[in-house]
């Protein structure tokens, strides 16, 4: 059993990371008071722009192209997310509808453009990210196998962003303001904070991180843009709630999803697991999420003002 777990671990982490970074994106947006159901679309946008960039650069800059691709993906999705920001912050649109529109637009327009470029709507990149083992640490028994073998550089990048995000949210004045905007924007405004600006920045960050998430899928395990991220954006949203809008909670929640999905995916190849009906393993993460939502319902830490357009005049 231990073998199975250590065996699955690196792949579970690879699957967790895009989810984690996207969910962190959702955290920024929602803690500032803007529901971002558009994460799915933002990931698609990241995957698309990343694939396009890498495709056009990979001949010239074999390895650099990947990192440039990730950067472009983050920025493109960040800019794209401003559509959501504009709708939900300036135009006081229903944020769930605006997010849905973001998902629909991203899903349609990326494939539309890709079809014009490649003819098929898919963009496949030749190069993926290499997996590396961390020297020295990889030799630690057990732990080394689980955490430090076969890792992607992006994993460490995302973990770094996680630590940074935790610091920003809780220890900086930007974080304090951001949280205030999500809890009680009127209070923030009365304290002289420009709620609009904070929310724009936060939504932009969420777009960047979700875009990065989409692009990480591309450069690690999928290798192609195909107009979908298979519901991972929604899963990231669920992780955000499951993780109770806290960076470390999200880490736990996304890892749970990553692990459970990986187990479900590989169960066929593992005799012990192959006896469990696949459907049970497949729906397990979703059912657990529902249960977790019930468990947390009494003590929900949801930002109080999330989803509410901020209206200066409102009491």
């Amino acid at each position, binding site marked *: 059993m231990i073998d199975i777990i250590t065996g699955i671990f690196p792949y579970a982490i690879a699957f967790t990371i895009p989810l984690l970074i996207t969910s962190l994106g959702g955290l920024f947006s929602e803690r500032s008071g803007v529901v971002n159901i558009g994460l799915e679309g933002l990931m698609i946008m990241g995957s698309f722009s990343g694939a396009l960039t890498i495709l056009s650069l990979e001949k010239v800059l074999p390895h650099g192209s990947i990192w440039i691709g990730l950067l472009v993906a983050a920025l493109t999705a960040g800019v794209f997310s401003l559509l959501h920001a504009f709708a939900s912050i300036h135009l006081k649109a229903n944020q*769930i509808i605006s997010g849905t529109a973001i998902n629909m637009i991203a899903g349609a327009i990326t494939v539309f453009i890709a*079809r014009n470029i490649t003819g098929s709507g898919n963009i496949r990149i030749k190069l993926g990210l290499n997996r590396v083992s961390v020297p020295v640490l990889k030799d630690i028994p057990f732990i080394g196998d689980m955490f430090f073998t076969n890792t992607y550089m992006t994993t460490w990048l995302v973990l770094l962003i996680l630590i940074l995000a935790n610091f920003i949210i809780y220890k900086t004045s930007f974080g304090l303001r951001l949280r205030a905007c999500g809890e009680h924007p009127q209070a923030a405004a009365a304290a002289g904070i420009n709620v609009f600006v904070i929310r724009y920045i936060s939504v932009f960050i969420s777009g960047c991180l979700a875009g990065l998430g989409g692009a990480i899928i591309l450069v690690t395990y999928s290798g192609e843009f195909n107009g979908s991220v298979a519901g991972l954006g929604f899963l990231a949203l*669920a992780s955000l*709630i499951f993780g109770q809008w806290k960076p470390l909670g999200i880490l736990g929640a996304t890892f749970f999803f990553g692990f459970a999905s990986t187990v479900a995916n590989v169960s066929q190849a593992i005799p012990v697991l192959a006896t469990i009906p696949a459907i049970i393993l497949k729906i397990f993460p979703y*059912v657990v999420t529902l249960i977790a*939502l019930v468990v947390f319902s009494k003590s929900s830490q949801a930002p109080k003002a999330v989803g509410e357009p901020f209206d200066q005049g409102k009491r």
Partner: protein
Amino acid sequence: MNLNSDKFRALWVALISVFLGLVAGAILMALTGHNPFEGYTYLFQGGLMNIERIGNTLATSTALFLTGISVAFAFKTGLFNIGASGQMLMGGLFATAIGLTWDLPKPILLPIILIASIIGGGLWALIPGLLKAKFNVHEVVATIMMNWIAYWTINYTIPAYFKGEYLETESRIIGNNASLRVEWLTDLFNGSYINLGFFIAVAVIIIIAIVLDKTVLGFTLKAVGFNKESAKYSGMNVNKSIILSMMIAGGLAGLGGATFYLGYSSNIQIGVLPAQGFDGIAVALLGANNPYGALAAAVFFGLLHSGKGFMNAMTDVPPEIGDTIIATIIYFAATSLLIHKFLDKITAFFKGGLKK
């Protein structure tokens, strides 16, 4: 016309959104080197060119009517049903299961199937409803989870119990007695897919409109949707109402599943989360959550969906332009404040003009 009456406002917002969406589509076509006029000509020809294509457009709209009204109904009662896809699947599963198992004459079998699909979708929405009512779990997340659970349930159930001969990925084809297609209608529309589902859907929309507007049930559900607390203080059974709203919404989407899998199609396939579930959100929004508005919006989206293939055959415009246009329309409808401001300006201008 009074620009300021709420209904007319909604209509204007919808029309302007559609217009802007089409303009955005045109710009996109032009930018990618296609001729927008040609594109739109073939797009609309594709949906309306002959009686068969009109029939197909209506057939394409049918499931959208029902998912659209499902979302709109939930919205009117304060709930966001993003789970129409899953409910559609479960409605389809229940309907297909009965259609494949029971060998009854069509007039008896069809009503049973339709009711089964409503129950299937309704039950699937019961869980988010319960969680919302009892534990205040947000229905958006719950319905998204239920979508995936439905997806995998279908993925498992169809191959295990209903798979077609040589076909692992879809159920057996249902018999003629379980199909919503009827010969006279198919012939009338020259071999189109239009089926009884279309008429059922229209009837259902009218019923829902009446329920919402003219009944105690509608009054209660809407009151709970607007303000749970006040409804509770007024002696309404809030939990029951939420669950009921969610189940009705789910039942409608489930019925949409029956019309899709047993009408438009003739069996149910695995590996697909039906896009109609999400398009239903668009339909509801463009229709301003008004049942008749949803009807019109669904026909329009059905037209886009139905015509885009012909456009693609006649030109090189990728059919995704259709989805792009729909998505853009939704964005514009969602940001209707801009349009409202624009209308305010126009109204003010005309009023000013009159005074002078």
